[in-house]
């Protein structure tokens, strides 16, 4: 039975169809899962560069005298440490420490921040932010007006540099430049961030300018092997780099600490934040479970929600993401298991279609750029 739903379109919807993107329902958005093929696109990003439409991401503008203290009370990382033109990864938490979402906070000016959230969580996050409004702050959901493309890979800087006079080498990781012009397309926020494990940039701009930017970038990157990429490759890339996907490695039931994002959970920061007590307690008592990397040494591919067993047959956890790794050419998985099963070399079993298949804990991230 099929349910008729109206899928949301990004500004690049027509472009994806025109250039052969295989457009599918991606959490309510019509987006390409692939262009030429997931493995080919994945390899393009690892070796050269890839271009992604991520206009579905949500953007919330936070302004006002109390903007900093307001955000600092909502998120796990320490916003007081962020400088203008710097971005910071953070987790929005429930009082019990579980995650509402993970996000990036961009400090645009002293009292002005852009908060970038996961597409499927935009409405939930915005409602949460409204519910906890405090002090002299106004927030607005500008997701529909903002488009975003990501250019990722070792050649991303060289390609983008051809089209702009802004010196990209001056933008360090997790910093950004505002009001950048890229080949006549104006007012772009160019951020050295990404979700692939490679160097690269995320470009935020007015939705009606995205199509022009996309075409110019693809043209400029042609000779360098830049390929348009779908969200399938985005997932395999972020998976190898062990970047959590909300709903899989991180969720209302899996805290940022358990997801391995402890660097962004500042339980010692001065300000209180929602979830602080629970996370501080969890940290003090020690984590009972963690996201771990597994290599499937038997035959098969582990998928999201497959069960993990100990070698003595006890059910111990679940696979959060699993696939064939295009870079390592192995069947790999991320799984949430008790801490006593997280030592490299620990043998476990994964149930794949009623068969117990051998797997072993391996070092993760599976891939780190050299």
């Amino acid at each position, binding site marked *: 039975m099929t349910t008729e739903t109206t899928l949301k379109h990004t500004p690049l919807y027509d472009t994806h169809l025109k250039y052969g993107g295989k457009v599918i329902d991606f959490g309510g958005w019509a987006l390409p*899962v*692939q262009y030429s093929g*997931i*493995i080919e696109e994945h390899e393009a990003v690892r070796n050269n560069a890839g271009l992604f439409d991520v206009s579905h991401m949500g953007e919330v503008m936070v302004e006002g005298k109390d903007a900093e203290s307001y955000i600092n009370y909502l998120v796990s990382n320490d916003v007081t440490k962020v400088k203008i033109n710097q971005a910071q990864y953070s987790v929005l938490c429930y009082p019990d420490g579980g995650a509402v979402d993970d996000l990036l906070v961009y400090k645009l000016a002293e009292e002005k921040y852009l908060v970038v959230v996961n597409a499927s969580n935009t409405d939930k996050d915005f409602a949460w932010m409204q519910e906890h409004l405090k002090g002299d702050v106004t927030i607005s959901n500008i997701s529909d007006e903002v488009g975003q493309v990501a250019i990722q890979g070792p050649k991303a800087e060289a390609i983008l540099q051809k089209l702009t006079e802004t010196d990209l080498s001056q933008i360090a990781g997790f910093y950004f430049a505002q009001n950048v012009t890229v080949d006549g397309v104006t007012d772009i926020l160019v951020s050295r961030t990404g979700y692939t494990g490679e160097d690269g940039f995320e470009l935020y701009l007015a939705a009606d300018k995205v199509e022009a930017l996309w075409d110019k970038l693809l043209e400029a990157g042609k000779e360098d092997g830049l390929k348009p990429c779908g969200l399938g490759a985005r997932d395999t890339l972020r998976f190898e780099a062990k970047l959590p996907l909300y709903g899989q490695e991180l969720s209302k039931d899996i805290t940022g600490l358990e997801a391995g994002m402890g660097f962004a959970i500042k339980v010692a920061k001065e300000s209180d934040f929602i979830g602080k007590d629970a996370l501080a307690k969890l940290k003090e008592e020690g984590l009972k479970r963690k996201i771990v990397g597994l290599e499937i040494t038997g035959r*098969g*591919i582990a998928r999201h929600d497959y069960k993990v067993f100990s070698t003595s047959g006890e059910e111990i956890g679940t696979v959060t993401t699993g*696939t064939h790794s295009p870079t390592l050419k192995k069947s790999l998985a991320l799984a949430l298991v008790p801490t006593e099963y997280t030592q490299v070399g620990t043998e476990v079993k994964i149930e794949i279609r009623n068969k117990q298949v051998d797997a072993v804990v391996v070092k993760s991230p599976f891939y780190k750029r050299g």
Partner: protein
Amino acid sequence: MTNLLYSKDHEWVQQLEGNRVRIGISDYAQHSLGDIVFVENPEVDSEVKANEAVGSIESVKAVSDLITPVSGAVVSVNEELEDAPQSINEQPFDGGWIFEVELSDSEELKGLLSEEEYKAFISEGEE
């Protein structure tokens, strides 16, 4: 390829000598699945029943059942797919064949589609 029959589950069936047939998936199927990275073959000597799942085919993104369009005994599987599952993408009708069955009921072939019928079936589905 000539003389191929097709199922509505997108397998092709090629008649070999006697009651033996070779089975693979169609070009349309390999294209919809995308990069194939793993094939779980049925076991040689196992008895299979038409329209049942006998194994699986996995792309980077998803798992699909491998359906046998005919009944009988599995007499051979393409072991090369273990190391080179991408053969199904590259040559779905040749090196990408999956398994062979000794038919228990050759009448079942009459229920399959000709190439023209299969093409019509696909284009219906895409409208």
